[in-house]
């Protein structure tokens, strides 16, 4: 087994007994820590304090918590005003509403205006489940990473979400953090390194032939796929690309050269997201065959999270298929 030991992942990673927690829980915990560390941290909420877990901050710091109602455009622009006057506002909602509905306010009053606002989009991806496609945001990475002066983070589990939240409060400037509704395995630990802008190798086989770059809870599927592939003598590297912007270009370049082929895995449209970011970079510096696991230009639908992940091609089997397909392409090119 080729787990990268310095990533200090959870020891029970492959035996199915991992704690299950949604990444939004980590956000709620991180907010409280950030609020304790800096009295300038304030939180704005658009009638979803329970769903986004911002109520944890509200309980602790009611005087720094503002309920905006169902008004995401106002939420973004109020935060912009706070952020240029010494405050560190966090605004959280479902990602379809923020940054979905209020994208222009974020662009003009936060990003272009360089206001120190942290935008938290929960309920991203089809794993939202029964609520259906209206509430399953699958375009947020694209619309946020295209925006100048915006940093984009996609934590892979609740612990990493907590770290990303605490880190965002300390980083100057606009940040976006993408969260999920559904419980997912907590496979990192408090000791797992989290440095904004630095991707983390989670798995590295002896003779890796494909680099699997993932983000978000799907990274757990990537690791299971990597174990399966190794048993079948196919070596891979699994990279946790929790920061989509700025992309860890140096590491991605080095590992792409080492492997010769890349697949990206994200619970997002394959256009414009993590895959897009990696492809834009590699075509310029080191073109390699790529496959893209994610939503293939389609909306989701109601269903159980695990059913939807399978149906839309983001489960273990889809990742393994993408790796194998990519290897066959490498052979043809060779």
């Amino acid at each position, binding site marked *: 087994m080729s787990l990268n030991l310095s990533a200090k992942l959870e020891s029970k990673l492959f035996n199915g007994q991992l704690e299950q927690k949604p990444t939004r829980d980590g956000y709620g915990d991180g907010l409280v820590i950030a609020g304790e560390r800096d009295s300038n941290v304030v939180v704005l909420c658009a009638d979803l304090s329970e769903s986004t877990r911002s109520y944890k901050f509200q309980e602790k710091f009611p005087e720094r918590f503002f309920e905006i109602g169902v008004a995401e455009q106002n939420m973004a622009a*109020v935060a912009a*005003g706070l952020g240029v*006057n010494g405050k560190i506002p966090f605004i959280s909602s479902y990602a379809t509403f923020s940054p979905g509905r209020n994208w*222009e306010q974020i662009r*003009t009053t936060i990003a*272009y205006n360089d206001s120190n606002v942290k935008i938290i989009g929960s309920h991203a991806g089809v794993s939202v489940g029964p609520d259906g496609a209206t509430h399953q945001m699958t375009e947020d990475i694209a619309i946020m990473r295209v925006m100048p002066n915006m940093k984009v983070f996609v934590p892979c589990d609740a612990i990493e979400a907590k770290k990303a939240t605490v880190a965002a409060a300390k980083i100057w400037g606009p940040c976006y953090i993408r969260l999920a509704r559904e419980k997912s395995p907590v496979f990192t630990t408090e000791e797992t390194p989290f440095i904004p802008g630095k991707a983390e190798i989670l798995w590295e086989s002896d003779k890796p032939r494909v680099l699997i770059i993932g983000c978000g809870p799907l990274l757990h599927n990537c690791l299971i796929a990597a174990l399966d592939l190794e048993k079948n003598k196919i070596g891979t590297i699994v990279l946790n690309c929790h920061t989509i912007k700025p992309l860890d270009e140096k590491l991605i370049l080095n590992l792409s050269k080492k492997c010769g082929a890349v697949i990206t895995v994200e619970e997002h449209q394959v256009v414009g997201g993590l895959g897009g970011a990696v492809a834009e970079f590699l075509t310029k510096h080191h073109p390699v065959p790529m496959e893209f696991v994610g939503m293939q230009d389609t909306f989701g639908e109601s269903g159980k999270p695990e059913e939807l992940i399978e149906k839309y091609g983001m489960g273990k089997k889809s990742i393994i298929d993408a790796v194998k397909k990519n290897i066959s392409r490498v052979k043809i090119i060779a």
Partner: protein
Amino acid sequence: MERLHEKKLKQLEEKAAEIRYDTIEMVINAGSGHVAGPLGMADIFTALYFHILNHNPKKPDWLDRDRLVLSNGHICPIRYATMAHAGYFSKEELKTLRKLGTRLQGHPHRTVLPGSETTSGPLGSGLSQACGISLAGRLDNKKYQIYCIMSDGEQDAGNTWEAVMFAAKYKLNNLTAIIDRNNIQIDGMTENIMPLESLRDKYESFNWHVIEVDGHNIQQFVDAVFEAKAIYEKPTVIIAHTIPGKGVDFMEFDYLWHSKSFNKEEAKKSLNELRTLRGKIKSEHQ
């Protein structure tokens, strides 16, 4: 802020006429830009920068300054001209409006021009930003006032009313909104495009204190700002009835001048008319 006396009032009116003149020259020089709105707001901007605001042009980032938020960013020529007169930068810089490398962007940008407070242009989000600044002031126990200038056209925007509700909920009494009620927007008269009346009733029913003034009567406007400061239990909106293009006869009340620029002849004519206006102000006060 002191009460106005006759001499100061005359000075302000003369200043407003000078600022109108420079505003037109700026827009002529730039070759594009909005002009009717800026002319209509010249008296109010002059009153704010030369009588009302607690500010320091040499220290635009002074933490205790009053904040003037311009929500309808397209009328920025009037703000730029007034800021130059107030000493934020040289009048020479006004010639750079809308040109490559300028700090005087076609719509205001906070990070390049200290003193702008916000970046604006897309309508409807300025009052929200002003609410955020107001909250920040309250959290920090600051005494500064926040003034937010909006157009009447942007009362069409849902975002504006989200902010109106928010300000009332949190009783933002350090916030005074000022609506430039000039009745025009790009496509025509506001009441034809999307009727706003009764604007007073709307704001009152949203729990705001409402004052209506003649936006060209500096005395009335200053009195309204005094009154707004005295209202503690709710935010105040001053609906300032203005004449778009005020000071240039052929532009007044004509919505086509909302965003149209001048040809040579119109430019000359408008500057001549403003010269006459300045003469009138002088004689009226003699």
